[in-house]
């Protein structure tokens, strides 16, 4: 199986509020600056590979740098150091117009706060990516309708995002991402803003969609349960670095350090209970 996403030695360092611009990519100097309080390290020497067709989950608490990491993949945030490859093409060294082409063709993103256009109908929102590509009206609306049906929003095409519930808005967000039919989906805490029942429902649907489409999904979450449920592979992120990477089971069984251990503690208890035979209890986990 080929590699869909490859990240090598990725750093993202921000200057402190009002501080000088970061003009170096030397790890030692960056480290030094951070220690002196001149800079904040958001992503620190992160490397990983995602095989195509896999769901890769990055889990971490807020402030662990996971949102910055996902933005670095499309250079929505410009990395300070390191390389990002999408489908074996390096995107960290290409020019703006080529980057635009990559964003249009190779990957689509789903956002925690949806990022829908309030002035466009559901249909136009879903067709947005296709419009940017310059695809004709008829073709892109046909495609958009197809995607709207796929996420179960038929009948809502002419409504505006403001009149939809959070769950429905995120369905629009997912439909928009799928409309361009990219091989890679980047999802930045897509279900975090939704209430637990809807969240569960959306997770199930994503799993279902994934079995049909077989995309490569890079999924960021702060919810361990969500990560376990969706991920083929998982990484735990803390203060900008990956502290552990492996399958959800590996992480559950052999937490690499105290931080991960504390993270998975509760989950482990539930897991033990389920294995103890009380399967109904496991269903309540959320």
């Amino acid at each position, binding site marked *: 199986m080929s590699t869909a996403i490859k990240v090598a030695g990725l750093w993202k360092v921000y200057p402190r509020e009002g501080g000088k611009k970061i003009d170096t990519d030397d790890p030692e100097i960056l480290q030094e600056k951070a220690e002196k309080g001149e800079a904040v390290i958001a992503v620190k020497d992160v490397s990983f590979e995602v095989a195509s067709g896999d769901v890769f989950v990055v889990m971490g608490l807020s402030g662990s740098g996971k949102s910055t990491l996902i933005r670095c993949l*499309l250079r*929505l945030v410009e990395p300070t150091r390191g390389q990002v490859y999408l489908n074996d093409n390096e995107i960290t060294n290409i020019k703006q*117009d080529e980057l*635009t*082409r*990559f*964003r*249009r*063709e190779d990957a*689509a*993103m789903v*956002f925690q*706060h*949806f*990022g*829908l*256009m*309030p*002035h466009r109908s559901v249909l136009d929102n879903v067709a*947005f*990516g296709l*419009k*940017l*590509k310059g695809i004709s009206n008829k073709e892109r609306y046909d495609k958009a309708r197809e995607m709207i049906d796929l996420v179960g929003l038929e009948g809502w095409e002419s409504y*505006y995002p*403001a*009149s939809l519930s959070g769950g429905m808005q995120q369905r629009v967000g997912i439909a*928009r991402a799928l409309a*361009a039919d990219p091989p890679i989906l*980047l999802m930045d805490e897509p279900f975090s803003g939704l209430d637990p029942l809807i969240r569960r429902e959306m997770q199930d649907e994503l799993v279902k969609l994934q079995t049909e489409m077989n995309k490569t999904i890079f999924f960021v979450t702060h919810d361990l349960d969500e990560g376990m449920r969706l991920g083929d592979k998982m990484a735990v992120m803390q203060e900008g670095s990956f502290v552990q990477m492996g399958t959800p089971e590996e992480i559950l069984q052999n937490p690499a350090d105290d931080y991960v251990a504390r993270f998975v503690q509760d989950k482990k208890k539930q897991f033990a209970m389920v294995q103890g035979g009380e399967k109904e209890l496991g269903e309540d986990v959320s």
Partner: protein
Amino acid sequence: MFPETWKFEVAGPINDLVDWLLATFSVFFDGISSGVLTLLLQISSILEAIPWFIYIIAIAAIIGFTSRRVFSTVFLALLPVIVGMFGLWDLAIESLAVVITAVVLALIIGIPMGMLMAEFNLLETIIRPILDAMQTMPSFVYLIPALMFFGLGRVPAVFATFIFAVPPIIRLTNLGLRLVPQEVQEAALSYGATRMQLLREVRIPLAMPSILAGVNQTTMMALSMVVIASMIGAGGLGYEVLISINRINVGRGFEAGISVVILAIVIDRLTQSFAKRYEPPSR
């Protein structure tokens, strides 16, 4: 007494500078002058060609269609009739022509300027204090450069009105574009929007309410300036006010003043009703 020896003259050099400017760039100023005059004459001939009742019907139609309130529609449509009854209709149209010309120029120059300011931070840091200064300057002051470069008449009046009225549209275009939510812009970028596409598809539509508020402000500023610009030959209602001040004819001034207010109210409502149509749908 202020020390006599500290006396320092700038009036002389400034006059010399202006003379030099006028002599050197006379072609330039003449070009602007004739361009503005052509526009003004076009607009004013169109406005004069429209019979009075068409204005009333148009106002009623626009207000009625956007507000759907019977009282305010009838009220706003009948207000201009009062101006006609005072016998000031033609003068009001004359003022309106100057206002519209100045506003058209302000929009043509102000909106792109605001966009550039929103696009380039450096430009904002440069232009912002200039706008601040322009808005704190007494409106009278703008008569001086207008007079200097274009002499007396309707062209300098348009010029002074334009200068006075242009800051709000620049400011509010810039502000509107900058206030477009970051997450929406980021989403657009992640789908491969170029800078131009981002502007056209996302930022301008979402900034539209703010830009139209700017149009409204600019129009109101132009209207207040057109009264003052009557001192350098704007004519119209402002000139009527000026005459009544000179002759201490309170009644005549009152009629003209009320007419200006009526013009302001109606134009304000009209531009606001356009702005309302561009609010993003909330349900």
